[in-house]
């Protein structure tokens, strides 16, 4: 075998990964169009096109532009954010359990929401529409959820600082902080009245139906730069995979890469969770699925997780909207139902391979 054939063999191998990325991109676009098509009002593809090009009927414009489009785009953003943060956490922490959910960030956000609803009185209006509970001050809930997720991130980083940033300490602290916040939420619920209780439960189910254009722009401003940051660091994450000492000898400032990565991953997921509630399993499962297809090379894993996560959440949300139409399920329920068995399946398959 010669140097040239080794290189060509590798190139052919990498090409397969590129093809995978292209396929998900195409699927993502298809699902975006499908997401606009499906809903309780039937709107044809040609009507959608005329709406998107600036013509079309008034009611259709209302439905497409103000309801379905922000929802589809939010699904794309939230899915991408949660998945890329999960992928980054899994490599930063050198642990396949890394994800916003397992590290307690979601629990902290839920606690923050409950805190706003009960202590700050953000949720005591009665529900007016048949199937929804209206929070009288949704922004207070969002801000509180976000602030408390920062607290949980802060606890993780604080502990890591004192134990010189070992991944084990970070993971264990995250798990413990997460259960602490879960206990806190339960305690708050104990003092809640019926309406507050239902507001908390409602908030906890991740639901993309809350997305407005304003939320979308907020998210975009946070999630695009953080995604770019992770893609830029994909080589650093590849070195972390080899071990801390090797990574250092390859010129990487391991502690800095680890701390910054954790901060940015936590921030962007805290943002997504604060707006939409808990969308479980996406951040954990998506990187594992992608790794199954294209292996552990972060150069491809990170961007592919962005795309696959967007596609996965959009797909789940479209199903959630249509499966028992006209009732719209919160997507968080669906991702849990899809994600948990999927994860177990991956684990079983992984065991056979070893």
């Amino acid at each position, binding site marked *: *075998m010669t140097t040239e054939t*080794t*290189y060509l063999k590798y*190139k052919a191998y990498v090409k397969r990964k590129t093809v995978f990325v292209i396929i998900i991109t195409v699927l993502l676009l298809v699902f975006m169009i499908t997401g606009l098509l499906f809903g309780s009002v039937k709107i044809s593809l040609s009507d959608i096109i005329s709406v998107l090009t600036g013509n079309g009927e008034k009611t259709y414009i209302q439905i497409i532009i103000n309801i379905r489009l922000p929802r589809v785009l939010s699904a794309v953003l939230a899915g991408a954010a949660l998945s890329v943060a999960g992928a980054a956490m899994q490599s930063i922490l*050198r642990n396949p359990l890394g994800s916003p959910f397992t590290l307690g960030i979601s629990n902290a956000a839920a606690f923050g929401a409950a805190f706003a609803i009960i202590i700050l009185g953000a949720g005591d209006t009665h529900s007016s529409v048949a199937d929804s509970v209206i929070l009288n001050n949704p922004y207070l809930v969002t801000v509180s959820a976000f602030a408390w997720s920062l607290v949980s991130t802060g606890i993780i980083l604080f502990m890591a600082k004192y134990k010189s940033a070992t991944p084990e300490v970070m993971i264990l602290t995250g798990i413990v902080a997460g259960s602490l916040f879960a206990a806190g939420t339960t305690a708050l619920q104990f003092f809640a009245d019926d309406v507050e209780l239902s507001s908390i439960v409602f908030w906890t189910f991740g639901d993309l139906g809350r997305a407005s254009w304003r939320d979308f722009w907020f998210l975009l401003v946070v999630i695009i730069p953080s995604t770019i940051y992770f893609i830029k660091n994909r080589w650093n994450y590849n*070195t972390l*995979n080899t071990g801390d000492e*090797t990574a250092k000898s390859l*010129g990487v400032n391991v502690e800095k890469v680890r701390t910054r990565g954790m901060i940015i991953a936590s921030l962007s997921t805290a943002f997504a969770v604060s707006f939409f509630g808990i969308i479980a399993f996406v951040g954990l499962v998506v990187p594992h699925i992608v790794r199954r297809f294209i292996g552990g090379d972060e150069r491809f894993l990170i961007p592919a997780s962005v795309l696959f996560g967007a596609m996965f959440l959009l797909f789940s949300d479209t199903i959630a909207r249509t499966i028992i139409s006209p009732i719209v399920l919160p997507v968080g329920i669906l991702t849990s139902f899809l994600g948990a068995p999927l994860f177990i399946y991956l684990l079983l398959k992984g065991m056979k391979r070893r």
Partner: protein
Amino acid sequence: MKISINNLNFSYNGSFALKDINEHIETGEFTAFVGPNGSGKSTLLKCIDRILIPSKGEILFNDQNIKYYKREKIAKIIAYVPQNEGNIYPVTVFDAVLIGRKPYVNWAPSKNDFDKTAEVIEKLDLGDISLNEINKLSGGQRQRVYIARALAQEPKVLLLDEPTANLDLRHQLEVLELLQVLSENGITIIIAIHDLNMAIKFCSKFVMINEGEIFATGGKEIITSGNIEQLYGVKVKIIKEDGEMIIIPLNNKHKKISLAI
């Protein structure tokens, strides 16, 4: 590149410490760190690569103190293969070697990076398994992957912690021969190694380390049965055959280990 270690001190938070290490290693020297388990060989190698930061003293490369260098710059000079460290997530052999180009890669690897990678893969006889997952290789194959990664770094100084520990006889010879050739080409090489016979066969300089201190340093002349007995507490006989030294351990009669349980 020549290395001067001046008055180096290092200590983990616990009890073990490297004490007042002074050593000078010439360009292209092939040096063996030898000594008992826990004597500090790995620790000293890590200090040289600044993976561990010494508490006192300095290390000069061509009379330059790398303390003031950025990590990336050090990575272009020194490559290090740890004793036991492995990937968490499976990657292919090619990818595992390609990561050695990290110090040279900004956004994406260039054709030159791929060529260098393929070249060292061939050099270490890994061509046939270049697309296998490294988590599924044998211990010896994986060791060669790590050495290939270090070579992909194009270092001037190469530090290897027990590079032959998992290798079969043929691959031990091949790896050490390769390192010898590299040292003849001007790369300064330091290995930690337990196999004294292999060390004598290939290395030009020996640093005996005991309990965090340098016990003896020099060429083959320091490999004496007296030194070895003091270092390891084991009696040996050294014989000369065809001009080569061979160390034969003798039964350790006065320190019989009781097998009673």
